[in-house]
């Protein structure tokens, strides 16, 4: 049901990890090709800038190759390298000191607008979320990770992942109330979340 890079040729992927750990660059490249688009797309949404996303993805590849021997369970290669990517994104944002700022409309937004048409409202709402919430939303709905996988990527308990997802969705619902969701609040006095 869930998107999983290693659902096919799992054993082969794991042996590629072992080869790459011994310094086999070809093996690493094959592994990386399997996750590159996913990493880049996630970084695009998190960083809201395609050049930064490209840099983060390249840097994640270098770090992953360099420290691959610290990955003790080859089956977790994708979640492991995604964790490295998220750290890169965090570092880039921290450097630019725009962790909690609403980002400028840059080229990437314009590209998004052209590509997405009416859907842009949802993405703009995502852009308003702060780093932690934007990250769980991206991992959950762009990559389709389970709560357990997200917990592994972020290194936090599943309960934290679940509450971040719920809070992010609540913020998005509030932001999208007018355009997309008529009467989202119950009239019976129930307090959602």
């Amino acid at each position, binding site marked *: 049901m869930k998107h999983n890079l290693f659902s096919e040729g799992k054993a082969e992927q794991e042996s590629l990890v072992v080869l790459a750990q011994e310094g086999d660059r070809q093996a*690493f490249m094959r592994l990386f090709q399997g996750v590159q688009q996913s990493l880049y*797309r996630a970084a695009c949404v998190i960083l809201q800038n395609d050049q930064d996303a490209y840099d983060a993805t390249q840097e994640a590849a*270098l770090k992953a190759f360099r*420290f*691959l021997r610290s990955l003790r369970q080859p089956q977790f290669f994708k979640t492991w390298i995604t*964790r490295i990517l998220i750290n890169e994104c965090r570092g880039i944002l921290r450097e630019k000191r725009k962790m909690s700022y609403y980002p400028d409309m840059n080229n990437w937004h314009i590209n998004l607008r052209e590509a997405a048409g009416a*859907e842009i409202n949802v993405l703009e709402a995502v852009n308003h979320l702060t780093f932690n919430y934007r990250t769980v939303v991206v991992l959950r709905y762009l990559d389709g990770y389970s709560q357990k996988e997200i917990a592994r990527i972020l290194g936090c308990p599943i309960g934290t992942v679940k509450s971040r997802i719920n809070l992010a*969705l609540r913020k998005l619902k509030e932001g999208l109330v007018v355009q997309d969701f008529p009467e989202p609040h*119950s009239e019976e006095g129930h307090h959602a979340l």
Partner: protein
Amino acid sequence: MRCRIVRPNLESYLAGELPSLHAVDLQRHLDACPACRKEMEVTRRLVKGLRSSFQDAIPPRSLPLPNLTVQPQRLPWLPKVASITVLGLLLLGLIVAPSIQPYRHETPAALMQTSPIPAHQSQSREASEVINRHGTDWRISIN
């Protein structure tokens, strides 16, 4: 099951990540509660909107493969040193513990409370946390 229990579980329910027993309870609640049904519908539409927006918005782009100018690093020596230290501490504990006990032998209850073994165990737990921090994940810790 009450609304305030149901609401935080709606997203997991929609994703099929609730244990089946809870899912049955939740479905029973939804059948009886229009407010939660409405909230679930809003959540379902939002999740669907997010998925399709992400899919449509960022078209795959051909990206050059990275130039791997680095070599894979050998595992750091710290975990080995730390695990040897832990073993040493445990051994030391086993040797020293019997020699401490005679001073506390008056009441068995007092012995249980002040036995030196838990102290050494907690020491080793701390030490193994050090290993974890400096083993698998130390280079990529998030916080």
